């Protein structure tokens, strides 16, 4: 199954812009399903980006982050071809990770 993480990392000059879209329900635990039962909270808590052996961005998310969450940021100190490791863990212990090449 394809990874749940879609990433676009493009570098121009010293700045690399990173956009990520993750396939995840991000359930708040406050919503009822068709049968009227509460859908338990199920959301990504931490999303980490590492490049050249150091964290370049760490996101701590609550239940107010949208379904199929998206985040965009930029950082310096990387160049085309470097590896960018992205990994997330959610409140149910689920996780996923991929390594993408900076274009």
């Amino acid at each position, binding site marked *: 199954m*394809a990874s749940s993480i*879609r990433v*676009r990392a493009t570098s121009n000059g010293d700045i690399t812009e990173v*956009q*990520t*879209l993750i*396939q995840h329900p991000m359930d708040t635990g406050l919503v009822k399903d068709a049968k009227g039962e509460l859908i338990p909270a199920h959301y990504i808590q931490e999303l980490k980006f590492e490049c050249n052996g150091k964290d370049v961005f760490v996101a701590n998310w609550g239940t107010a982050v949208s*379904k*199929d969450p*998206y985040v*965009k940021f930029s950082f310096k100190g990387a160049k085309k071809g470097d590896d960018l490791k992205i990994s997330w863990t959610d409140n149910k212990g689920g996780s996923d990770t991929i390594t993408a090449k900076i274009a």
Partner: protein
Amino acid sequence: MKARIALLLGSLGAALVAFAFASPRVVAADKVDPVTDAKAFQNFFFQKFPDVKHEDFVNGPYSMNEDMKRQWREKEEFPPYEFALDAGKEMFATPFKNGKTYADCFPNGGIGIRQTYPYFDEKEGKVVTLELALNRCREANGEAPYSYVKDEMASLTAYMAFTSRGKPMDIRIPDDPRALEAFENGKRYFYTRRGQLNFSCASCHVQSPGQRIRAEILAPALGILNAMPIYRSEWSGMGTTSRRFVTCNSQTRAVPLEPQAEEYRDVEYFLSYVANGLPISGPGARP
């Protein structure tokens, strides 16, 4: 006194002439004339919204409101239909149990043809939509049909729409009285009021596009299906044209018809034909 009478007679005469002039137009309209209808339909919107670029109408509410357009642009940077698109591409390439694939069912392998759907099938004498053709292809190859409303069907149509992005809508009406009747049936459905709220599609999408209905900006009817299938934040998921018709019906408190009912296929035929020439922009992201 005499002047006033003359004035009265004059205006009466003018009114009569105007009426005479207009009435053949009304009479002519009863004979189904899709070409004139399409021209009138497009001109109505081009005149009502002179500063909206013609091809922009296919972006629905975002062609009507700057603040919404900005939110849309931001979403389109990494659109939420990305997953459905990838899933559709993968499904399109995965062969059926009998080894065939969707490409064998469609002209040009199914790539870049969405703009010709729906088409009028002269053998069967009815409108065939992309969704109907896809399920027919599955059944012809021994596979179970998909729901017409979301999930797999939305992913497949998303991929096929994506391969047609930018191509102008190109719907043809063959010279066949049944095709003209289907077009007319679609037009009638579009303008007919229904549900306890007594709205027709036109009440919202012709009389008040650009205005708000609670938080939403109403899309113009011109090119309203060019972006199908759409990812709606409201559904937090994908939806096909059928799903949109079904939900619109229930919002006016009309009991929806079956997803591929004749009226739905015909109104899709009508709305696609009058949007001829405007680019395909599917899959779309909507509120």
